């Protein structure tokens, strides 16, 4: 009965809100017909948008960055920056949005959205602060020293969700202290929460864009007319690997920097998830899909939900949803909104803001840009099936040999190539046998330790480096002190976490390829110490390449010792710390790994190319430039190699090749058949030609830092700290390095 009353009240409230503007508003002149609907003849210039909805905002506090105005009933607020631009927590016209149907109308006015599981009715339900708290006058807004604290009480559900918004030296900070979050009813548990989902949302008539650090970074213009069914959603640091995946149609580019941004005509905001990033998922919607607004926000997973399918191949298949019980995982969720003002502020300034944040937080030292080298990844060996006298066997098949690599590098050196970053991958016996890699023994068909040492010595003499790729998380066989049954991390279902390879054609698990397991996060520190011990035999100058370990996060639901995703992240970070007595390199490192990185490989040249985004931007490269040397993804495996080379030049990235020294045909029929264009000798001429171009560009810009990038049509311009500009014409392939309109170097790709 009470629920019915509440529902009726809601309908009444919505109806009154919808009717109210029509009767009492006077509006500013607007070009948008949507606004014209509510305009009257008595327009006054002083009327602000807030009056449309009868919301009163009170100035709570101010500092050099701007002022914070808050509605004391709902907690809705706006931040007025020094340019006079107002950043509303919720669109002021949101409550009369005709495009927003059902719950979205209420969500538009909410500061908090969440999903809770009702164990009584066994349902996951959505809720928001506006409909179930503010409208029942259950929200408590308290002024604090630098802002306010809103406590949203959901009496019916028994939840109290605190949200603190405060002014700081950069802008504002929104924080949910999960330890103060109250769940009074046993049968209701919150599973995820979205903070300020419509902050800075772009209306249909507004100019501006949303930026997300997906892959290299991408931008979605407001009102770009794109269509999506489910909106953009990408987990920070990649999906939790413990989750059950029944089908998979490919790999996403990771969001390894927990940052997004919104640009408006005279101002831009950079939103950085400073706490709880590992639980976060970026969500984004273009205009006119669920509401009239483009919005971007972070949804945090407080407890884990997993789906398990039993007997997935059979008619008797059934799925089971698993809901994590117990305490909320994150302690605190914090998003820092940092504002920059000016006419042309955009993703370049967002990158600068984020870079400053990284430098401060992780105490990273700035280094001079080293944009000179070529990164070469050599694939050592692969397991392949053979039949010897009819007996099926799995044998080690060499794709490269250390001697072959040395020969190739010598050939390159003779041709004037120096400063190479050579990485050996799939090189160790343990990696190949699916064991935890902590003894660093090379595969016999690939080479010997002695040969690797000689290779390292030679490379050192040519100002080049040698990195050995390590795999410390994935394994499928017991051995080297680790048992696949007792040392595997567990999924929520209590089964070991299995990592499958999926068919590209039908998206299903490829069960012909051995499934991998993940090591318990708590074991990582021991493994790293063992690795360090085993590495004594190798030269100190040899680098360890930790591949994508920084974005390979997972929860471990082992009943003896549970580790949530943030705890795993901390374990992984500790591993980096342990191994940092040696030089480390990473493939597309996450923010917390940059501090430990000597160089970064495989920095994506594109984003995930979601259809709602208009174009890609080199945000990650702008951040990394001057912090760490970085290379592109292997360009020999790109569909448009020329564009990849031009992108690398425009983004200031070293060129990377993924190679094999043995016969090109040796990859056919193996798991490494993705190396379909990797034979080193076949690519020799291309490598040397491009190296010439890159070394000339490098000497022209002389170790300076890329500070901004812009692209208009087919012309991209990258500005460096010494004032030089690299102009890349994607149509003609022309590359020009200039200084104050004076051409320093020009070439054609």
């Amino acid at each position, binding site marked *: 009965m009470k629920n019915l009353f509440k529902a009726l009240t809601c309908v009444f409230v919505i109806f009154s809100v919808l009717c109210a503007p029509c009767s009492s508003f006077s509006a500013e002149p607007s070009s948008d017909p949507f606004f014209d609907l509510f305009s009257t003849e008595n327009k006054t210039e002083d009327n602000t948008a807030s009056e449309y909805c009868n919301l009163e905002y009170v100035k709570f506090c101010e500092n050099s960055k701007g002022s914070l105005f808050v509605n004391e009933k709902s907690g809705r607020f706006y931040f007025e920056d020094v340019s006079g631009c107002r950043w509303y927590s919720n669109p002021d016209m949101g409550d009369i949005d005709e495009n927003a149907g059902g719950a979205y109308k209420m969500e538009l006015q909410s500061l908090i959205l969440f999903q809770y599981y009702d164990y009584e009715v066994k349902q996951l339900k959505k809720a928001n602060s506006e409909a179930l708290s503010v409208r029942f006058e259950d929200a408590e807004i308290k002024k604090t020293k630098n802002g306010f604290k809103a406590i949203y009480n959901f009496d019916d559900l028994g939840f109290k969700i605190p949200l603190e918004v405060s002014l700081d030296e950069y802008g504002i900070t929104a924080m949910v202290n999960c330890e103060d979050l109250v769940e009074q009813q046993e049968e209701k548990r919150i599973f995820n929460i979205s903070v300020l989902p419509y902050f800075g949302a772009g209306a249909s008539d507004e100019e501006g864009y949303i930026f997300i650090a997906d*892959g290299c970074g991408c931008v979605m213009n407001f009102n770009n007319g794109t269509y999506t069914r489910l909106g953009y959603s990408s987990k920070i640091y990649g999906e939790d690997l413990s989750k059950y995946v029944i089908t998979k149609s490919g790999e996403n580019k990771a969001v390894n920097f927990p940052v997004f941004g919104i640009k408006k005509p005279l101002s831009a905001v950079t939103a950085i998830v400073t706490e709880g990033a590992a639980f976060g998922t970026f969500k984004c919607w273009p205009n006119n899909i669920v509401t009239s607004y483009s919005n971007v926000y972070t949804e945090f997973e407080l407890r884990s939900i997993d789906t398990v399918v039993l007997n997935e191949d059979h008619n008797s298949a059934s799925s089971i949803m698993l809901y994590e019980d117990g305490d909320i995982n994150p302690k605190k969720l914090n998003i820092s909104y940092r504002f920059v003002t000016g006419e042309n502020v955009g993703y370049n300034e967002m990158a600068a803001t984020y870079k400053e944040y990284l430098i401060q937080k992780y105490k990273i030292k700035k280094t001079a840009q080293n944009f000179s080298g070529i990164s070469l990844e050599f694939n050592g060996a692969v397991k392949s099936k053979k*039949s010897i006298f009819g007996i099926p066997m799995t044998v080690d098949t060499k794709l490269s040999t250390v001697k072959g690599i040395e020969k190739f590098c010598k050939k390159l050196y003779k041709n004037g190539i120096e400063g190479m970053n050579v990485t050996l991958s799939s090189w160790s016996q343990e990696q190949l046998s699916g064991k935890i890699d902590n003894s660093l023994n090379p595969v016999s068909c690939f080479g010997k330790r002695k040969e690797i040492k000689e290779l390292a010595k030679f490379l050192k003499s040519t100002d080049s480096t040698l990195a050995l790729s390590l795999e410390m998380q994935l394994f499928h066989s017991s051995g080297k002190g680790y048992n696949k049954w007792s040392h595997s991390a567990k999924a929520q279902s209590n089964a070991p976490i299995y990592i499958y390879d999926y068919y590209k054609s039908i998206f*299903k698990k490829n069960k012909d390829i051995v499934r991998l397991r993940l090591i318990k996060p708590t074991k990582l520190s021991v493994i790293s110490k063992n690795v360090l011990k085993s590495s004594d035999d190798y030269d100190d100058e040899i680098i360890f390449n930790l591949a994508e370990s920084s974005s390979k996060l997972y929860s471990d639901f082992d009943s003896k010792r549970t580790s949530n995703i943030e705890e795993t992240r901390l374990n992984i970070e500790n591993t980096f710390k342990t191994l940092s007595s040696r030089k480390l390199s990473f493939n597309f490192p996450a923010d917390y790994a940059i501090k430990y990185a000597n160089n970064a490989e495989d920095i994506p040249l594109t984003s995930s190319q979601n259809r709602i985004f208009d174009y890609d931007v080199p945000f990650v490269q702008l951040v990394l430039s001057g912090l760490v040397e970085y290379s592109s993804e292997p360009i020999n495996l790109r569909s448009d190699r020329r564009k990849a080379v031009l992108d690398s030049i425009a983004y200031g990235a070293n060129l990377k090749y993924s190679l094999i020294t043995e016969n090109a045909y040796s990859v056919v029929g193996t798991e490494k058949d993705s190396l379909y264009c990797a034979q080193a000798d076949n690519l020799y001429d291309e490598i040397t030609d491009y190296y010439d171009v890159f070394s000339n560009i490098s000497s022209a810009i002389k170790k300076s830092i890329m500070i901004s990038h812009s692209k208009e049509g087919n012309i991209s311009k990258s500005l460096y700290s010494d004032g030089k500009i690299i102009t890349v014409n994607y149509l003609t392939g022309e590359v020009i390095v200039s200084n104050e309109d004076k051409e320093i170097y020009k070439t054609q790709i």
Partner: protein
Amino acid sequence: MKSFKKCDRVVKGIIVLLFIALFSCGVFTVSAADSSYNYDAWDEEIDAPLGYTVSKTVNGIDLNIGKLNKPSDIYVSDDYDVYISDTENNRIIILNSEFKLKKIVDSIIINGEESELKMPGGLFVDTNNEIYVTQKEMGRVLRMTGEGNVLDVYEKPASNLLDENFEYLPIKVIKSTNNSVYILSENYYYGALTYNHSGEFVGFYGSNKVDVTVDLLIDYAWKKISTKEQKDKMVRYVPIAYVSFDIDKDNFVYTCTQITKDSHDEIRKLNASGKDIINFYTKNTASSIGNFGDIKTLWLMGKSTDTQFVDICADDNGIINCLDYSRGRIFQYDDEGHLLNIFGGIGDSKDSFFGVSAIDNMGEKILVLDKEANSFTVFTPTNYTNTLHKALALYKDGMYAEAKPLWENLILENVNCEIAYTGLGRALYAEGKYKDAMSAFKKGYDRTGYSLAFKAQRKIDIRSSFPIIATTIMILLVLVLTYVLVRRFILKKPFIKREQKLTPVRRIMRAMIHPFDEFYDLKDTKQWCFPAALIILFSWFVVTVADKTLTGFIFNYNKPEDTNILFYFASTCLLYLLFVIINWAITTLIDGKGKMYEIFVSCTYALIPYIISILVNIILSNMFTAEEAAFYTFFQAVGFIWSFMLFLGALRAIHDYTFTKTIFCMVLTVAGIAFVIFLLILFVSLLQQFFLFGTSIFTELLYRG
């Protein structure tokens, strides 16, 4: 310590579909791919470079004409104007080659009266820029100018050829260069309705064939003995209707069918008489010839998802692009059925779709219409595809030498590209480099090409080694002759045939030639040689394995790395043992005199000719070309028949049967073996189900705690 006890069973069925949709369509938004896949000669999925990249996505907002609404067809005219049938907005949108708006046709003039263009569907634009548009809901096809002046209306023809119940629902239209108009009516299985240049209905064109299935044959047999009433109640087997078609400059019509019963022949290339002329290349797996789209079918949670073609287009070089609705993919083939490229997909990335409806090509570019996203996507070929198309065009024209550098380049770009090896093989063969050609053909799994090169190389090898062989034979002959002459005339020692003792080996050899006598004799004397029998049985197993692994490439369709001796052990030794047991069991019931031991040993003797024939064939397979396959088959047949005769002889002698009874006994034995195998399969299946049930219970208990 945390516990994760609470769980919720989700209703099956609806969720199954939802699940598939969610997980494969975008809960995890997936990157636009930078590589693709293809299928190798063994139908295994292999990685391949991406053939096409997205150069543009165009929607109504970009064109300032408002959102498109369920656009159903796209057509690119000869002068590269793009026509879009914006169905639910009741308009045809015409864009120029730069995808800028040229015109909107939303009204038509019929007999001087202007009216709204309602629900336009399939489109075709001829060389005079006259638009042919289907209006399914109105049951007509219009021929009109770009201004909307209707020149002709193709309505339901009044013809005896049509069924009484025929519902005219035109969905696609094409026109040939000789002015014949073909119209596809939805769900109509007699093919396309054909109109001549005067607009008169003249009949049907190129209907699909009925798939011959077991069900069909059974029903056919029943119908033969059924009454008319019974027949009327039975299912009618009719061909599957086309969903779309296209026509090329030479008037070849390309058709596609959404689903066929056996997932084969979804694509057809029809000549003027409506005959399918796609000339398939030979594959390792015969079952996949004619299987278009994805070869693997997704079986998940008891449901299957297969390719469902909704549209097709072909370019002037005979490159066929087919659009798969199930997974939003474009499959590109040449006219021999080689799968060249796969791109597109379902999902949120730029190169994916939500619900594809039509495809057409604009020169090398490909345009794909998405009726759910209300946009179309322009795909541009990558360098890899450009090279591949050029090489194929030269190859088709027989310009092998000119195509050679292109094939070499393709192999450098994609070592998995089997068609490139075939092309290179042809070029090398034309250059007379037969050994290299053989190697290339082998990598391309082109047995015909390999056989040609092998034949040429064999000729060279024989010619070059002939003097050595001839000299060696001559020397051997001279030596033998000398020996004979010396022994006879100088040493005066005559060649006397000595009495030979009947050793087990000699007995076996005798049994080969005189089976009836010898097996009776063996039975009487009981001089069976058990070790010899074991050796023969083991030899059978060994030569079977050798046959799979050592047979020459031309005759060997086995994947060497998948050869598993356990399987061959079971299919030789274990099967033989089963035969012996069953035969013994049956013959004890029908007065057989043979003992198990005797059956076991005597029948192994019978295997010898078959074993020898396999051995000979292994050797010959490395010497013969495909043209000489008859000899290969001949030896195999001889070995088999000989062994069969020996079997009969052995069983007859051992059991003391008449010839007829021996045959009867063999039939019963075979039936017995089949029954035992059936029981074994049933048992294994039950065991599997039991295990599955057990693990399900265990897992559920574990999850639910």
